């Protein structure tokens, strides 16, 4: 019984805190999607399905939602394609300096997100660094192709923001591969590319999935980067949620959109968790 009182004393404060300030707000947000009135406080018709009907009928919402999913998919895939060779190189060819080099890749991940987005706003800006540099080199005349305020600018910036995070889980997964499996493949006549495709790549898959989710989830929720570099064509679902709370002041509709986003990121996690042990994904 002493044991139980210890568990009770240790767990009660964190459990109560998270229940009140995390689980409860999410539950209220879910209830809010059924409320009438702009702030969800209209008591004349307390419960309604109108926001659900409007959401489904509004093709813009669905189009932007789908576009955000596609854009997040592009960003995550590009991050993996860029970071996989780095992780592979560090694991197999970098020798004793690998941890130092890996740390070098990880440090930018710790630098303020807003600053890193800002640096790309400056680089890609209309009168910005890339444009004026190209003009200075004489490569382009006045008519500089404007890179900023496009979905492409959002993709470039988000890849830059997230790519340092992805090298670590892939590196860890490659490091866990038993070297004797690679030798066995070579002994059985597999050349380098066969060994890579049939041994290394499949065995590093947990790291790839972890890295993918690590980028995909926050990117689905993005609204800051599109606001700074994406322009009107680069609007994402997060921007529409932001708009419902800060501009349109339709909190129940914003809650519904936020709930849709919550489910959209939770689903891949649950699906992955069914097939892969989560500790395998997180493990270093």
């Amino acid at each position: 019984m002493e044991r139980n009182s210890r568990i009770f004393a240790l767990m009660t404060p964190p459990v109560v805190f998270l229940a009140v300030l995390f689980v409860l707000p999410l539950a209220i947000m879910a209830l809010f999607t059924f409320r009438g009135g702009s702030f969800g406080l209209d008591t004349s018709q307390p419960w309604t399905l109108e926001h659900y009907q409007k959401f489904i009928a509004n093709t813009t919402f669905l189009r932007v939602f789908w576009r955000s999913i596609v854009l997040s998919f592009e960003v995550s895939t590009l991050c993996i394609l860029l970071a996989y060779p780095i992780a592979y190189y560090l694991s197999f060819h970098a020798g004793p300096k690998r941890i130092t080099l890996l740390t070098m890749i990880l440090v930018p991940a710790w630098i303020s997100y807003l600053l890193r987005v800002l640096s790309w706003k400056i680089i890609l800006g209309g009168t910005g660094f890339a444009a004026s540099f190209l003009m200075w080199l004489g490569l382009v005349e006045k008519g500089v192709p404007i890179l900023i305020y496009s979905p492409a600018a959002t993709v470039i910036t988000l890849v830059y923001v997230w790519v340092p995070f992805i090298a670590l889980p892939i590196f860890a997964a490659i490091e866990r591969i038993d070297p004797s499996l690679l030798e066995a493949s070579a002994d059985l006549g597999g050349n380098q590319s066969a060994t890579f495709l049939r041994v290394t790549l499949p065995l590093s898959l947990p790291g790839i999935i972890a890295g993918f989710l690590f980028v995909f989830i926050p990117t689905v929720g993005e609204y800051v980067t599109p606001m700074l570099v994406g322009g009107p064509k680069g609007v994402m679902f997060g921007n529409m949620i932001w708009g419902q709370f800060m501009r349109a002041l339709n909190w129940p509709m914003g809650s519904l959109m936020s709930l849709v986003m919550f489910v959209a990121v939770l689903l891949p996690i649950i699906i992955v968790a069914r097939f892969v042990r989560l500790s395998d994904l997180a493990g270093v």
Partner: protein
Amino acid sequence: MRDVQFKKFLSPASIYFWIFAVFLYFPIFLLVILSFNDSALLRFPLKGFTLDWYKTVLRSHELVGALQNSVVVGVVSSVVSGVLGTMAAIGIVRFRFPGRNLFLAISALPLVIPAIVIGVALLILFRSILDVDLSLWTLGLSHVVINIPIVMLIVASRLAGMDANLEEAAMDLGASYWTAQLRVTLPIVFPALIAAFLTAFTTSFDEYAMSVFVVGTKPTLPVYMYSMLRFPRKIPVVVTMASIILVASIALIFLAEQLRRAGQNSTSKVR
């Protein structure tokens, strides 16, 4: 021998690595260089060297005020999440109890769901349900929510590597359970506590996407910097502020990493 090393350095894989590293570091260095550029327009070629932007930053009361708000919220939210996260970490590492897995899943969620979702959920709670004014308090509480899982992860992995027999030994020698926690366990995981504190502080200090929903009228540094980005003339000041934070945060990262390593060494010595 040198020839071999040189060839290795020039291999396509290593060249790709260094291009990748330049891609990661160039935009950051660019910010620092531009903070010394004598022009309100951030364009190439650079004009000349100046320290004026730094003087402007130091003289701006609003910026210094925002920095103070950020530091206060960062310290308070890291301490509170440090205490709650450490308690939870001890609970889940040392004990098996009903609901443990549920707690693990829910407490990890703030790490994986988008910040905007947590932000709007807390905004609804604060404004529509509790009807409290947004302030640094609501912001700080919100930061504790996202910092608890960070602290839990760092402290739990340290606790798992620690020999639980040391607690048993202390209790056999007459210490109560809580004395053993305070006098044996906490000192051993202390480097992890510091690392967790610094990580939580950095997270809080940098948080924008959720904070903007619950911040109220007193801005933190990211909120203030973001609001200045609308004015092109102010961008060099933001860039300069950014450079200062950049250098400070890199120093903090190295400190946290050194402490983490020191912690690993000291526990292996204890063993």
